[in-house]
């Protein structure tokens, strides 16, 4: 084994094309995230458990005192809100993960290697997307058990889930950017406290109609509200959209918000990753 550490022992394969490298590094990076999930079943259990708890707490505890304007079942009103919460929470794992990698020096090591920067980050967001499919599916099952139905047929329901996954994907890029920017795991943990009110000032749990004027404007224009409203429309669940533009054109607003956020966060995250510490 005298040659094991010698410079000729393990030569990298011939120079790959940029596209081949992107694909290969994306896949490797996905693999890394999925391996992490495999070794921490608790992580997955938490992701799966939270929606169940949310249905019980919001649907049955709060729901017992909630009235939806114009009638309709509160739990049916709530479910699209919970789906959107799962989508929004996509910001968390990538934010904490990116901050941890920076703090531990993993980012430095990766950056000192001849890898595709975009591929590394893309792999992490795609892996998260895979996990989210499972979480959303489970939440849907719990919802069905609680009386929620998708009332506009399969195509619209799939459209709603596609929008939810798109938004989750956008949020994972926002999380990556924030995590790279804060660079410390504890700091990322603290930032997550900020995400909570952001997610509360929406139409997810209560109609915005009862909020004070200024808060209502914030809630109506909150991207998360667009996602919730779009999901309510596509699922055919009770809604109380009000007259604000994003509420009247929820699907379009969701697509626009997603496009803008992704166009900003994606390239910024890749740039931040590539030039970190410069």
């Amino acid at each position: 084994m005298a040659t094991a550490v010698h410079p000729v022992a393990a030569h990298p394969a011939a120079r790959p094309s940029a596209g081949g490298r992107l694909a290969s590094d994306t896949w490797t990076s996905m693999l890394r995230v999925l391996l992490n999930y495999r070794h921490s079943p608790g992580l997955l259990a938490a992701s799966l458990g939270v929606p169940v708890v949310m249905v019980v707490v919001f649907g049955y505890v709060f729901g017992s005192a909630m009235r939806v304007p114009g009638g309709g079942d509160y739990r049916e009103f709530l479910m699209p809100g919970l789906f959107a919460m799962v989508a929004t929470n996509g910001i968390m794992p990538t934010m904490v993960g990116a901050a941890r990698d920076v703090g531990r020096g993993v980012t430095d090591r990766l950056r000192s290697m001849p890898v595709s920067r975009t591929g590394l980050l893309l792999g992490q967001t795609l892996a998260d997307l895979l996990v989210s499919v499972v979480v959303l599916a489970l939440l849907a099952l719990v919802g069905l058990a609680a009386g929620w139905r998708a009332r506009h047929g399969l195509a619209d329901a799939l459209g709603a889930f596609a929008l939810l996954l798109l938004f989750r994907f956008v949020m994972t890029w926002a999380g990556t950017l924030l995590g790279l920017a804060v660079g410390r795991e504890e700091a990322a943990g603290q930032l997550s406290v900020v995400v909570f009110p952001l997610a509360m000032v929406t139409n997810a749990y209560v109609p915005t109609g009862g909020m004070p004027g200024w808060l209502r404007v914030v809630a109506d224009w909150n991207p998360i509200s667009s996602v919730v409203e779009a999901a309510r429309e596509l699922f055919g669940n009770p809604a109380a959209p009000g007259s604000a533009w994003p509420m009247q054109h929820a699907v379009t607003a969701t697509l626009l918000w997603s496009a803008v956020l992704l166009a900003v966060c994606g390239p910024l995250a890749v740039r931040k990753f590539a030039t970190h510490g410069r």
Partner: protein
Amino acid sequence: MSDTARPAIEMAGVQKRFGSTEALRGLDLTVPAGTVCGLLGPNGAGKTTAVRVLATLVAPDRGTVRVAGHDAVRDAEEVRRAIGLAGQHAALDEGITGRDNLHLFGRLHRLGARRARERADELLTRFGLAEAGDRLVRTYSGGMRRRLDLIASLVTSPPVLFLDEPTTGLDPRSRQEIWNTVKELADGGTTVLLTTQYLEEADRLADDVVVVDHGAAIATGPPARLKAAIGSQVSVTLADPAQLAATAVVLSSLSGGDARIDLAERTVTVLTTPGVSVLLPSLVRELDGGGIVAEDVAVRRPSLDDVFLALTGEGATREGATREGATQESAATGRAA
């Protein structure tokens, strides 16, 4: 590949400023291919920044940097293909196994899935981590992490290796293991640049030492020459304070230096003139001849602190630096009966 006649690592006039901190102010560095260079300096000297510049993680504000024959700024990608980096802290994914860490790094280095697996197995076996390889890294001890981190930089057998304080915080055995690995790598032709706060480490491993302070090289040369440039410290502790003055005379004449008397500790200390070595037996003989009863006689080889004292006129213990360097060196203390 790189031209072997050229140095593997070259830095000339490299400057790097972070806000108001000048981390590097004109650092010059040349490491011939196949040699080990020790970057020695106290906390905040700029060692890590130098490594980060060399590893293409930080672009210098000014100056030229070439690694393995490529410009580290313009041809960063080529440099990355030629280097391995083990940073100051173990850069590993704690949530997966050691084996998977190596396997994933191998894939990123484009060894291919199968070769990456084989390589991970090879390295784990070779460095005594075969069994621990299937445990999550978060269950590893500090020494195991450091070792795995070093191994992770060897996945491609890079011709140029950067190790930032590879043994800080390790017990003597783990330190020795890392030293052996570095020696083996160097014997195999790898160019190694390592940073350290321990003169002893540089002494054992490095062909050349570059002493860095405030972002610039203040001394360069083989370790033996650096140490020869400063003397050893000899100290004698007495039972009877009345004999302090006589002892000071003996020490001064033997060492050619000025002996200092510490009354409270009943100790006389002298820094020997460079080139003059004080041998313990002759010292004890002289003291006996003068009827001096010594409680303790110690000869301490120069430590990083001493090098700094000699080179800069101030101690290395600034910016909250620890005295680990000195503690480690005192292992060389000799005791007379």
